[in-house]
């Protein structure tokens, strides 16, 4: 995944404050957190920054499809093993006799479901990384050996 420094290197680094942030570094952090987008940096729109702007957009592209919690499921890496379905504490709490026991989910309250051999995330508001009391939960990332689940 792209880092703040990689984004920062491609910005004008003039700290012009036109974007509303105090420094270019702060703007890079905001971009990574999906609070700002590339177009808000007005100097980047000028012709001499065209290449940097394109590079920035391509770097941020994978994060564009992320859920509100920043979750991305790389379906090309997913083997559909269902480790995340069973390991997710929210799935276990919401469906103890289905997903919690390793079987197919028995209701629609679960976050992860496997469809056509690939995992799909839904009910994202139930995720422990969402909302006011969010925690930095790694329950679905740890059991995935292929690295198909990522948070940005």
């Amino acid at each position, binding site marked *: 995944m792209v880092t703040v420094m990689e984004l920062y290197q491609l910005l004008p680094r003039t700290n012009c404050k036109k974007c509303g942030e105090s420094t270019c570094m702060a703007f890079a952090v905001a971009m990574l957190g999906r609070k700002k987008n590339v177009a808000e940096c007005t100097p980047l729109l000028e012709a001499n920054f065209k290449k940097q702007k394109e590079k920035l957009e391509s770097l941020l592209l994978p994060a564009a499809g992320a859920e509100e919690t920043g979750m991305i499921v790389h379906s090309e890496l*997913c*083997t*559909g*093993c*269902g*480790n995340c*379905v*069973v*390991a997710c*504490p929210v799935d*276990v709490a919401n469906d*103890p006799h289905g997903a*919690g*026991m*390793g*079987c*197919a*989910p028995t209701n629609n309250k679960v976050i992860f*479901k*496997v*469809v*056509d*051999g*690939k995992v799909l995330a839904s009910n994202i508001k139930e995720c422990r990384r969402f909302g006011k009391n969010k925690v930095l939960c790694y329950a679905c990332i740890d*059991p995935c*050996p*292929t690295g198909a689940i990522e948070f940005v």
Partner: protein
Amino acid sequence: MVTCTGCALLCDDIEAIVENNRIKEIKNACRRGAARMKGCSNRLVPSIDQKPTDIESSIKKAAQIIRNSKAPMLFGLDNSTCEAQVKGIQFAKKINGILDDTSSFCQGILIERVLAQKFRTCSLDDIRNKADVLVYWGSDAQDSQPRHLSRFSYFPRGELRQRGYEEDRIAIAIDVRESNTAKICKGHFYRISPKGDREFILALIEALSGKVPAYDTKKMLELAGILKKAGFGAIFVGIGLTYSIKDDFDVLTALTQKLPNFNIMPMVGHYNMRGFNETMFKETGFVNKVKFNGKAVHDIKYSIMESLNEKTADAIVVVGSDPVSSLPGPVLSRLASIPVICIDPCVTMTSKIAAVTIPCATSGLESAGTAVRMDGKVIGLSKIIESEYLTDEEIMKRLMEAV
């Protein structure tokens, strides 16, 4: 709910959404299972000498080849239902043929010992409910049986294991490489050199007996400590371990004697390989490598490898298997030199060299029946979509009549 026939786990919690007699969506199955359940993209057509024909003519031609053969061989049946396997054994008896399946170069040797009760074994449900120490030995379950860890062994909560995998279970991987299963086992991965299993087992037995092993002392004592504390353990024996100690299987027996709380689980690949081995064991007392000649004779020379190498077989019927892609190169020229009759739903490497091809229905998708899971539990397969193709069982019956 339908049963997936992607691997020997036979997951029976799969949802299939059918539209216009085609599978539109498969829910809960892994990628491997979903691909199998969606059917093959390249369907086999009946043919004689690579020229398309109709099914009746190809069955007639196949029967003619078998009639003219002095030592016909039947190979495969691991991807067929138990009912088709029974018919297959009857067919082999009728033609006085050699009968073998992929277990002769896979887990057959281990399953034979499990069936003869030389090892303690248990069901996968027992493992989910009770197991606290899981050893994946020479097995990459995460890739070969993708739902093994999530459905039965490591991740699910069971009756006695309610607190989740981090607290209640320990997974150990012993392998020659850091497989995907080993990545999940993280701190408990023991890398061994190829063919190093025997040495590892002997050192582990020493450590379990209270001696100090010469081989990797610190790690070995640590592993022995974990195994000794296990309340209910399981050793998942993969093909890596079976291949490595196949000439001296007694070392594994000796290890299990030192570990009274542990059970052995053979990690089977094809979905009904254990079914074939069990049916054969019931009928003949052997799991594979059999020649029927009034009675069943078991010998290593009746394995697929030796039969081709020694030219014992002069015609071969391959059912639901692809020896061309799984056997080593030198024996393939022998396979190509004898007439091959290929019975399969899809075009395979074997069907491309076959003298006669007979397409069949995909079991568990276009035909119903039963199959045996890797732990010996019988699971029902359902018919999900209609198909005009004959089932393996019907083809065996028709061939028997025609011969």
